[in-house]
């Protein structure tokens, strides 16, 4: 009797233990799958930086704020709504920022350094965690505060987006002023990516076309015409020295230069034997070799980032379309079939996609094609968009909008965020330089 009682208790205990064990795995951890993300922009506020309580000559926090906002990836906060501009995380009133929906806060200050410039210290504060996530210190010369602002933007951008920011990069473009043939001036201009601090590196009464940045950003290749002689030439100009060198010149077409990724070769179009073909000029040897030999026009080459492929425009199919071939000129494949014409291709920095101008019933618009899937996405509105150029981090495309008021436009890769770089006069053929850092 006692024995059976004991066994019954034992059985009971075992049952309870088993039940407990079966209940345990559920207690281990709640498993939650996250498959969606918010498509909203990252909320961030950059409070004004001050130097010893004084305003800086350049509003670097405003520069950084505009940089981030232009990408469309960040939602920045109007300074007028900021109730405080703390210099250190200890001074932050987190509730106040959180109440405004500010998830991320950048605060900082500047101090004079020994070199006569400024040492800028800033913190990235996570408002939800109520703590500084990271802090940075940058030194800037007295006349480099603008770049300091872009640098701050780059650092924040990279932290949030995971890619380098292009806020220190430069662009080149051509402006045309004057209405008549006599007083028209063509200028090749280099500016900050946002169009600020423009400087003319070459000007002429005759047309200037097709600027192209060397991979290192120290030189620009472009096409210059001599209307009087009836010739055109492909030139390479050193930006710091201003010295220029002509790699191809003569009657007919000498145009559309494109740098190889290693910066040692330039592919360009040249008319020969009655039609235009692609050639490659070796900067080191001064030798030129012909890539294509078709009876049609082959032009506007773009080198893939790995240097093994070239995409170009050809009308060998009757209309201008994009084709790809290897760097030796073989294995030509047609890339584009949509629209009545597709031209002016530019490789993305990662080599996975190209951007180009597509002509369709809606006019000329900027398209982006994924080279793996051949999916095409139209990212501009038209109807007269031209000369797309990838940002050096591949996250945006710069192009010339020639309808209405002439301007350069910046569009994010998904086509959602657009910003316009205002310039005086007619602006053509932008080219986006390297990151700049």
């Amino acid at each position, binding site marked *: 009797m006692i024995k059976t009682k004991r066994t019954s208790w034992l059985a009971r205990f075992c049952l*309870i233990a*088993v*039940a407990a064990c079966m209940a345990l795995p559920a207690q281990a*951890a709640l*498993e*939650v799958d*996250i498959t969606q*993300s*918010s498509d909203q922009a990252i909320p961030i506020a950059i409070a004004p930086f001050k130097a010893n309580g004084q305003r800086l000559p350049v509003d670097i926090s405003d520069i950084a704020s505009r940089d981030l906002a232009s990408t469309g990836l960040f939602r920045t906060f109007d300074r007028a709504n900021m109730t405080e501009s703390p210099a250190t995380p200890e001074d932050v009133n987190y509730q106040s920022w959180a109440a405004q929906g500010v998830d991320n806060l950048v605060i900082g200050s500047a101090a004079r350094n020994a070199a006569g410039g400024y040492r800028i210290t800033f913190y990235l504060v996570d408002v939800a965690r109520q703590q500084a996530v990271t802090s940075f210190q940058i030194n800037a010369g007295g006349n480099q505060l603008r770049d300091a602002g872009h640098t701050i933007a780059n650092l924040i951008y990279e932290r949030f*987006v995971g890619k380098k920011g292009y806020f220190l990069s430069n662009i080149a473009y051509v402006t045309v002023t004057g209405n008549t043939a006599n007083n028209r001036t063509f200028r090749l201009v280099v500016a900050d990516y946002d169009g600020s601090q423009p400087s003319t590196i070459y000007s002429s009464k005759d047309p200037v076309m097709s600027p192209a940045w060397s991979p290192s950003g120290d030189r620009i290749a472009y096409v210059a015409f001599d209307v009087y002689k009836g010739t055109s030439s492909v030139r390479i100009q050193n930006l710091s020295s201003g010295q220029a060198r002509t790699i191809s010149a003569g009657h007919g077409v000498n145009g559309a230069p494109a740098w190889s990724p290693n910066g040692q070769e330039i592919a360009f179009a040249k008319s020969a034997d009655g039609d235009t073909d692609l050639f490659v000029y070796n900067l080191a040897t001064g030798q030129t070799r012909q890539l294509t030999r078709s009876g049609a026009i082959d032009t506007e080459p773009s080198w893939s980032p790995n240097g093994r492929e070239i995409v170009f425009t050809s009308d060998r199919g009757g209309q201008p379309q994009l084709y790809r071939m290897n760097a030796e000129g073989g294995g030509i494949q047609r890339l584009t079939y949509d629209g009545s014409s597709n031209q002016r291709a530019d490789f993305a920095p990662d080599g996975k996609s190209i951007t180009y101008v597509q002509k369709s019933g809606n006019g000329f618009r900027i398209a982006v094609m994924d080279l793996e899937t051949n999916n095409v996405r139209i990212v501009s509105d038209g109807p007269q968009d031209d000369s797309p150029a990838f940002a050096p981090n591949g996250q945006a495309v710069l192009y010339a909008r020639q309808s209405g008021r002439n301007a350069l436009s910046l569009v994010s890769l998904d086509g959602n965020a657009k910003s316009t770089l205002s310039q005086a006069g007619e602006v053509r053929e932008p080219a986006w330089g390297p990151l700049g850092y």
Partner: protein
Amino acid sequence: MLDLLEKIGEHWRAVLLAVLVHGALAAGLLFSLDFLQPASRGNQGESIVEASVMSSEDIDAMAAQNNAESTPPTSQPEPSTPPASAPTEAAKQQQAKREQAEAEAQRAERQAQAEAAKRERAEQAAADKARAQEKAQAEAKREAAEKARQKRQAEAKQEREAEARQEAKAEQEKARAAKEKAAKEKAQAEAQEKAKAEQAEAKAEKERAAEAAEAKAKAQKQAQAKRQAAAEAAAQKEKEQAEKAAREKAEAERKAREQAEAKAKAQAEAKAKAKAEAAAKAKAEAQAKAKAEAEAARRAREEAARKAAAQSQLEKAMAEESAGRQAAADQRALAGYIQAIRNKVEANWIRPPGATDVTCKVHVKQLPGGQVANVRVVSSCGGPALDRSVEQAIYKSDPLPSPPSGNLFQSDIEFTFRPDS
């Protein structure tokens, strides 16, 4: 007072029965009294004699019978002496006449005397007869009265016995009802407690439930056995009480009987004997009845216990079902809880652009209020910016949603970010 009312309400049947029996007895008593009254009145007056019993033939018959039976000595001498002295003073002429007249008168007198005697005799006989009748009637009346008395006594006795029985029965019933009620309450309480305990063990497995059921059945069996034992003990007690009550009643009756004996010695012994027998019989009956009732009560209790067991079985089944429903509800609640966490984190996750094939695991420790205590990226999402974005998504979701019920809370949460799958 309320208590009494309550008791009456509880045993209204017994009360009603008692009232009815009493009423019946009272009616019986009244009726019998009414029936006997004329006889007792007749005991004092002669109305009956005068009224209708005697006809002249009867009287004659009776007189003849009386004459035949015994000569009436008192009829002749006294009335004959006064008329004899009157005829001596009359004339001789007239003497014959007188004598003749006398003779005639004597004759007439004699005749009258004879008639008177006859009448007297008849009267005597009638009186005798009436006396006899009276006597007989008185005798009958006495007998009737005696009988009525006996009957009354017997009835009183019966009534008392009935009362005793009734009371015993009522008491038994009361006790039984109380017992039943207690048993029922106990069973109910037990069932409730059991159900509660089972609900508390909401996630109990089937085996465990079965085990519990077994244990419960055993416990119930034991409880039943216990209850049965208690019932039997109670029955025994009741029996004893009934016996005691019966004994007391018998004692009272015996005393009454003794008093009655003092008044009526003649019937005493027989009556005592009869009463003793009756008492014994009543006692035996009461015992038998008590026993039968105890048996009935036991059966009723058993039935009640069975019913209670069935009820608890049903409740247990319902509890099991509700436990199953609870488990299902928990499952739904858990799914809802997970969905709530998911929704909040997804709303707060701003995925860096351009990142493809994102997949990573993030381990989060939360405090009971949903406060994020620790975030650890177990496997990188593909870059520091992505890792930061998921971390921030979780920190921004602080406090994490609360579970619908506390038992669903788990301090460890494993997030799997896989937007591209």
